[in-house]
């Protein structure tokens, strides 16, 4: 099924795009990541211009997060208070990110910056997650050994002034911590064209020490609003949001997100994290490979 994309200016196989959306949708429901870190590179690989890919992927992530948030909300899995704080941070962060984006673009190095960010961020998080999940699985398999007692949150967090109660997260911490986290994720969202869930989820788990049941829902809640802002930013500045492309991706991802959410309830969280860690590491390795090996295209063209 050939579909012509009016903004990307080329025709694509519609079914392929829907399938790609479904894949990232499942990931989004399953792990609470937006799936942008997979959609954007895959779209570019398919031949969609990078800016259009990033802009339309952020629109798609919005849709996938709505259905994810709804699904998690039914189970009380969203800490709205925590979410609001990170969203405010995300707004500030995406504004900073937009400035940085323009700066690196004028240097002609935005692609390299994005690739390096992917390798460093995904690589670090992937390794941390894999190690943690592996120990957890080993511990449960051992049977006799009780699971290692978890540290609630990072000692630095406790040092921050002013404390709020986040009931659903089971936390009594300073709102500055999630705010700073939101800013950091907002910057990355704008720079990397991703929702930032793959950073948010582990950060909420291991740095803030939120209770695992609300991490995925709250992360999706944050992604929902931050990608809305990103879509608007792209529509106004790059004018690269392809509504047909986004629609096709959405068709797949909104259904995929629902399936993913239901799968998430059946699977064991440690194995889920191990799988996510694997996917994250794969993408990081692919990016590292792309940086180190002579690329297929030495030349890139940009309009003046």
């Amino acid at each position, binding site marked *: 099924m050939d579909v012509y994309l009016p*903004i990307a200016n080329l025709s694509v196989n519609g079914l392929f795009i829907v399938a790609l959306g479904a894949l990232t949708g499942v990931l989004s429901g399953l792990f609470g990541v937006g799936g942008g870190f997979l959609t954007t590179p895959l779209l570019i690989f398919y031949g969609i211009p990078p800016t259009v890919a990033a802009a339309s992927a952020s629109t798609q992530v919005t849709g*996938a*997060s709505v259905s994810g948030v709804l699904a998690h909300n039914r189970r009380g899995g969203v800490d709205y208070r925590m979410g609001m704080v990170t969203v405010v941070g995300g707004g500030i962060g995406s504004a900073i990110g937009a400035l940085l984006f323009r700066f690196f673009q004028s240097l002609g190095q935005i692609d390299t910056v994005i690739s390096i960010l992917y390798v460093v961020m995904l690589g670090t998080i992937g390794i941390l997650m894999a190690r943690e999940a592996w120990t957890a699985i080993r511990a449960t398999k051992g049977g006799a050994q009780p699971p290692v007692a978890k540290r609630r949150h990072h000692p630095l967090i406790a040092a921050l002034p002013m404390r709020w109660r986040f009931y659903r997260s089971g936390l009594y911490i300073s709102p500055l911590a999630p705010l700073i986290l939101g800013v950091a994720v907002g910057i990355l969202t704008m720079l990397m064209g991703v929702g930032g869930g793959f950073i948010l989820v582990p950060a909420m788990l291991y740095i803030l020490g939120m209770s695992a049941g609300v991490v995925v829902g709250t992360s999706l809640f944050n992604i929902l609003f931050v990608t809305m802002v990103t879509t608007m930013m792209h529509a106004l500045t790059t004018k690269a949001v392809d509504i047909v492309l986004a629609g096709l991706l959405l068709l797949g991802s909104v259904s995929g*997100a*629902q399936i993913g959410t239901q799968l998430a309830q059946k699977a064991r969280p440690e194995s889920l994290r191990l799988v996510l860690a694997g996917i994250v590491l794969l993408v990081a390795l692919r990016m590292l490979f792309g940086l180190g090996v002579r690329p297929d295209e030495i030349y890139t063209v940009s*309009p003046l």
Partner: protein
Amino acid sequence: MRRLLALFVIILLASATPASAQRDPILVPEVSQHEVRVRQGFTGTELLLFGAILDPAGTRSARGYDVVVVLKGPAQAIRLREKSKIGGIWINAASTDFRSAPSYFAVAASRPVDQIVDEKTAAIYEFGTRFIQLSPTGEIDPEEQARFSSGLVDFKQRQGLYKEDMNGVSISEQVLYQARISLPSNVTTGTYTAETFAVADGRVVSSAVAEVEVRKVGFERLVEIFSQENSFFYGLLAVALSVSMGWMAGRLFALV
């Protein structure tokens, strides 16, 4: 006898000179479609460029001509960046600007161009992807310039936007010629010019131009205009679309 011969030669020359000027053939070019409509389901199209070569008298020409067809898309100002390995990773290093690089360029000829004309003529009429006039700006040494130009051509060739087909023109009965040139779906919209050249004895003896308009129509045109001129509302629409689709999916699955 000698004077008679001289006179004969003069008469021959006198009659030959104006005749040779007139001997230039007339090209009557035509394109299968003057408007390419880019709409839903557009996967590219094939243009048939055809026509006739006639003697000025309107008769079939007595001799054979070679025909070269050049189809060019709207020119764009672009910046070309080149990656090099610095500190172990491939990053953009050198760059150059081209003031008018054609967004699309295709050459078809009845025989390989190097057999039809010499290098210089080929360069003048852009008979080949290596002769595209790109108008580079800034001062860079010719060698570097050549590297960038061939890099651009190679890049565009792999996107299917620059191509040459040295046996792409077929000529029948020395009168009718035709060439098929395909436009991929990722073509830029705008006015395309199809130039047809008749070549004899290494010289371009006649040329003619036809235009093809590539434009978006219907829904695709609407989306493009909307995104450009009402970008705020376009953005809102995109957000609304994604939120409503996500919400609907949520409701539907809640019923299941």
